[in-house]
């Protein structure tokens, strides 16, 4: 279990997160719902050790991650697919995946991961030697997810994976994420612009407002909550 306890994070005197606590369990998809600037991306960065916390801590299976570098956190099985994908544009699809596998385990493990990724996203398998920048937006997002899977994660953090994608592709991507979580037993923490879609494909949801968690409920319940529907789900 990936556990965030009382995490407080800020930039130069401004607190972006106030004592945020949440849990991400294996084999489940957890959605974080909140408006722009509520602190969702900051939380993701905090978990990855990219921003030192002012207070609180992140635990993986009860063990504190405080003081670990991002690569050590990746090595322990927590991987972020960042907003904006952050691919290696001039490298091929295969090379992007290979860099993803830097800490992904031995050769056999890498081979299995590659098979998993190309099975999940067949289009990537067909375009292995194409430069990443020549892929379509949807394919690039698949590559970003695939690259993260190459690191053999146990917990996958996804920051706005469907931003800028056509609705049909968005739907497919969500379904793939759901599928991979179930097949590999991954714990997924999802931040998504299209909250309705994310809730449909997730088990548990947290609502974050102005840096504080204000609700923690089953996703199905949140879809029926009138105040949430008004605020985040577009009526």
């Amino acid at each position, binding site marked *: 279990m990936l556990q965030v306890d009382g995490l407080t994070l800020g930039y130069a005197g401004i607190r972006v997160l106030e004592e945020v606590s949440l849990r991400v369990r294996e084999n489940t998809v957890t959605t974080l719902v909140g408006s722009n600037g509520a602190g969702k991306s900051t939380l993701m960065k905090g978990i990855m050790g990219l921003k030192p916390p002012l207070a609180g801590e992140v635990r993986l299976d009860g063990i504190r991650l405080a003081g670990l570098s991002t*690569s050590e956190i990746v090595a322990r099985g927590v991987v972020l697919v*960042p907003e904006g994908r952050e691919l*290696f544009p001039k490298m091929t699809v295969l090379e992007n995946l290979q860099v993803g596998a830097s800490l992904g385990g031995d050769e056999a493990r890498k081979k299995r991961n590659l098979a998993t990724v190309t099975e999940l996203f067949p289009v990537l398998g067909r375009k292995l030697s194409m430069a990443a920048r020549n892929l379509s937006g949807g394919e690039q997002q698949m590559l970003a997810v695939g690259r993260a899977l190459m690191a053999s994660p146990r917990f996958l953090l996804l920051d706005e994976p469907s931003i800028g994608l056509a609705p049909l592709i968005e739907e497919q991507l969500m379904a793939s994420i759901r599928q991979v979580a179930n097949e590999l037993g991954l714990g997924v923490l999802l931040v998504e612009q299209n909250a309705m879609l994310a809730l449909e494909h997730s088990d548990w949801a947290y609502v974050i407002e102005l840096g504080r968690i204000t609700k923690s409920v089953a996703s199905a319940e949140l879809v029926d909550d009138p105040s949430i529907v008004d605020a985040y789900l577009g009526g």
Partner: protein
Amino acid sequence: MQIALNILSLTSFYMCFALGLALVFGVMRVINFAHGEFYMIGAYSAFLCVSLIGPTTGALPAYIVSFAAAAIVTGLLGVLLYLVVVRKLMDKPLTIFIATLALSYMLQVVVVELFGPVGRSLPSPIPGIVRIGDAILPWSRVFVIVAISTLSVGLWFLLMRSDVGRRVRAVAQNPTGAVLQGVSVTRVGMMTLVAGSMIAGVSGAIMAPIGGITPFMGAAALWKAFIIIIVGGIGSIWGAVAAAFLFGTIDTFMTVAGAGRYLALTNAVIMLGVLSVMPSGLFGEKE
């Protein structure tokens, strides 16, 4: 034939030197102004090795040992440069630029004090000439062509085909993305700087018997490398290779035509000409 061989040797040298500089810049966005002095120190390492151990081992073994000596000396300088300067100034490229410029002068002064300002020359460790058709080429030049080409091609393979190389390119193209995949950007940065320094040093040792060895030889080589990288397009390996070939050819023809003293001028004019038409160089990314 003679001209083709000269072009080949000059191109491979330009390529090797420029690649080391481009590598460091591409990965760390840092210009190492002392790259030329690392090259010069490599040449002095060869000079020292051949004059000290040459008489007992013979010139050729001493010359070859000097490649390792140059790699060790410049590699250590690279480590020092990283630890003392680059690590703490990582987010201030201009300060690093000035600091490496200072290092470049310091190293020149140190070498002037140790060896004097007057140039040395290294007698060719491989005597004799080879005839290819009607062309005549000293064996020492053949050796340089093979050695420098091997170094360049080896570097290329390391970058394009190995796990380490992929990580280096990943950091160059997107440091944020690389960090998030668990690549240690600081480790890759240090490795690149040390590798770049060693390439400069080994090139210097290999090139030592050709042309003189002076405390100021690095500055001239660096100037040429900047022109090559800028014309090729900053950040583009292929651009650097193409520009190295371009200038290797131009410089060879000009030297043959007896216009060698106009080389620096012509090169600078070509650079400005290319930049005025293609501001990001021949193969550069448009920002």
